[in-house]
C-alpha cells in the first residue's frame, strides 16, 4: 500500500475503532443472542435455535411492527410538511439573520429529550395547560383527552425530530443557486410550477435525509410512546424494552432488535444512494 493510500486509512482509524468497539461488537453480541434459547432468569441458554425469528414473523408481533411503521411514517410526513416551509423561510431570510433563525430552530436540543417529552405531558394533560387555556377561553365541555393517544405519540416524535428535518432541508435549499428559480420564472413558470418542477426536485435529497432520520429514530423509539402513549400504544421499541427488562426473554428481544436494525439499514442505504445520485448532479452545476 502506498503512503498516499495509507494516510486516509490512518486518519479514519480512531473513528473506526470507536465504532467497532462500542457499536459493531455490542450489536453483533446482541444479534448472536437471537440464535439461542432464553435463560430462565434472563440471559441465554447456549442452545442454537431459529425459533426467535419465527416468533418475530408471528402476526401479533408483525402487527406491532406495522403499527410502529405507520406511526413513524405519519410522524415523518408531518415533520416534513412542517419543516419544509420553515426551512424555506429561513433560506430566504436575509443572510445575516439565517444563523439566528437556525439557532432558534435547534434551541430545543439544549434541553434533555426526557424533559422535553415530559413538557408535553404538562401541555396535553386533562388538567394541563391546553385544557386550562381552553377553559379560560370559555370552553365548558369535558376536558379534552389528548394525552395517551396515538396523536400525542406522533406529536412528541415530530416535535423532537423536527429540528433535524429543518436543518437537512435548509442545507439543500441554501446551496441551491437562486438563479435556477429565477430562470424558471423567466421561462414562463409561475411560483407554484417553479417550486414543483425546480425547487422541490432539487431539494429532495434534503427531504429524504431528514425524512429517513425521523423515520428511523421514530420506529425504534420507546421513550415517547411510553410517556405520551401511556403504554397503551405498543411500538417495537417498547416491545424490545419489555423483552429485555420485563419478560426476561433476551433472545426474542435480540431478534426483534435485529429486524428493526435491518429495516433501518435498508432505509439508510436507499437514502445514501439517492443523495449520492443528486450530489453528482449538483457538482455539475457548481462547475458552471
Amino acid at each position, binding site marked *: 500500500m502506498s503512503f498516499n493510500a495509507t494516510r486516509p486509512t490512518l486518519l479514519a482509524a480512531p473513528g473506526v475503532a470507536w465504532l467497532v468497539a462500542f457499536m459493531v461488537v455490542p450489536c453483533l453480541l446482541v444479534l448472536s443472542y437471537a440464535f439461542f434459547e432464553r435463560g430462565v432468569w434472563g440471559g441465554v441458554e447456549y442452545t442454537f435455535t431459529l425459533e426467535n425469528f419465527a416468533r418475530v414473523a408471528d402476526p401479533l408481533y408483525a402487527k406491532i411492527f406495522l403499527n410502529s411503521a405507520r406511526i413513524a411514517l405519519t410522524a415523518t410526513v408531518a415533520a416534513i410538511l412542517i419543516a419544509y416551509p420553515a426551512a424555506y423561510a429561513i433560506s430566504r431570510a436575509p443572510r445575516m439573520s439565517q444563523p439566528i433563525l437556525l439557532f432558534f430552530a435547534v434551541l430545543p436540543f439544549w434541553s434533555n429529550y426526557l424533559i422535553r417529552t415530559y413538557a408535553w405531558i404538562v401541555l396535553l394533560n386533562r388538567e394541563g395547560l391546553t385544557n386550562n387555556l381552553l377553559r379560560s377561553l370559555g370552553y365548558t365541555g369535558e376536558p379534552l383527552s389528548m394525552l395517551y393517544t396515538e396523536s400525542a405519540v406522533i406529536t412528541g416524535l415530530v416535535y423532537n425530530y423536527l429540528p433535524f428535518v429543518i436543518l437537512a432541508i435548509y442545507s439543500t435549499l441554501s446551496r441551491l*443557486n437562486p*438563479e*435556477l428559480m*429565477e*430562470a*424558471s*420564472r*423567466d*421561462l*414562463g*413558470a*409561475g411560483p407554484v*410550477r417553479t417550486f414543483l*418542477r*425546480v425547487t422541490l*426536485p*432539487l431539494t429532495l435529497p434534503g427531504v429524504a435525509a431528514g425524512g429517513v432520520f425521523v423515520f428511523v429514530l421514530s420506529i425504534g423509539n420507546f421513550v415517547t410512546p411510553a410517556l405520551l402513549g401511556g403504554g397503551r400504544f405498543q411500538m417495537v421499541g417498547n416491545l424490545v424494552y419489555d423483552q429485555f427488562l420485563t419478560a426476561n426473554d433476551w433472545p426474542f428481544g435480540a431478534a426483534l432488535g435485529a429486524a428493526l436494525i435491518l429495516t433501518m439499514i435498508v432505509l439508510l442505504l436507499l437514502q445514501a444512494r439517492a443523495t449520492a445520485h*443528486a450530489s*453528482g*448532479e*449538483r*457538482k*455539475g*452545476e457548481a*462547475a*458552471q
Partner: protein
Amino acid sequence: MNASSNPILRIEGVGKAFGPVTAVDDVTLDIRENEFFALLGPSGCGKTTLLRMLAGFESPNAGRILLEGKDISPLPPEKRPLNLMFQSYALFPHMTVRQNLSYGLEMERLARTEIRRRVDETMATTDLTQFADRKPEQLSGGQKQRVALARALVKRPKVLLLDEPLGALDKKLREKMQLELKRMQNEVGITFIIVTHDQEEALVMADRMAILKDGRLLQVGAPEDVYERPADRFVANFIGVMNFIDGKVGVDGLFVAEGLQVKASGNAGSATLAVRPENIAIGPPGDLPVSGAVVDIAYHGLDRVLHVKTTASATPLQVRIPASGAGNWKIGDALSLKIDPARCRLFQ
C-alpha cells in the same frame, strides 16, 4: 447592423434604489428593433440591476419600461415576452439539454409535437443536437453557454437579455463566441441587450452601446461614435486607451501644456486634452514639435506601444506604431511627437 429605427423597448426615467444606495438613477434609453445593444460599465455601475428590471426580477422605484409601447413594469417575469440568459447559465441540473430547452415551451402549454419540433430546430442551429440527452454536468463551459442561449432563444422572445454571457469562458473561446453571438443575432432577428464590463466585447459586438457609471447614463451611441467622440473623461478612459494631458486653453484658442501646443476649439480656461495612442505621430528628435524620450515599449504582435516621457504630462504618453513600421526604437531613445489636432478631444 440590420437594426431599424423603431424603438422596441423604451426605458423611461427608470430609477432603482436599494435602501440608501442608488443603483440606477433616472435612465432613459430607447432600444431599437433587431439591434445588438450593449450596456457597458464598470462593476457596480447599475447595468445588471437595469437588466434585472427589464427581466422583471427587480421593480423600478421610478419610471416605466415600455415594450412595443406597453408598460411591462407591473408584470412578473413569467408574463414578460423577454428572456434572460443568466451569467451562471442557471441550467436545470436535474434535466437533460432537451428538457432544459423544452421547459419554457411547456410553460406556454404548447402541443408536444410543436415543442419537439421547435426544440429540435433550435438545437440544430446552436449545434446541440448531439448533446440532447446529456445533463448539464456532462457539458463543457462553451456547450453550457450554448444551452443557456438556446433555452432562451427557443422561446422566441421579443428581446433577449444577456448578462455577461461570455464572462465564464477563456479568452480564445470568448472571441469566437462574440462573433458567434453576433451571427446568431443576425440569423434569428431578435433584439439582443447584452450587459458587459468588457469594453472590447461591446465594441466588437454591439450596434449601439450605452455607458453607465454610478447608475447614470453617460453616453449612448454606435461603437465608433463612443470611441472617437467620448462624451466625457470617464468614457474616454473606459473605452480603449487614452492619453490625458492637463493644461489650459488660451483666449487665442490654443491648448497649451508644458512644451506642447495644440489648436483646439474650447473656451478659455483649464482643460484636459485627450488623444488616442494611434493619433500621435513620431519622428527623430527635432523633426516634430514635442520632444520626448522612450521609457517603455510594449510589443503586441501587430503593433507596439511606446511609452514616451514628455514635459507635457506626468504619465508617459502612449504612442501606437505598427510593429512592421520604420524605426527600431529602444528604451532611452530621444524622439519627437506630433498630436493630430483633428483627432483630439478637449474636456473642460
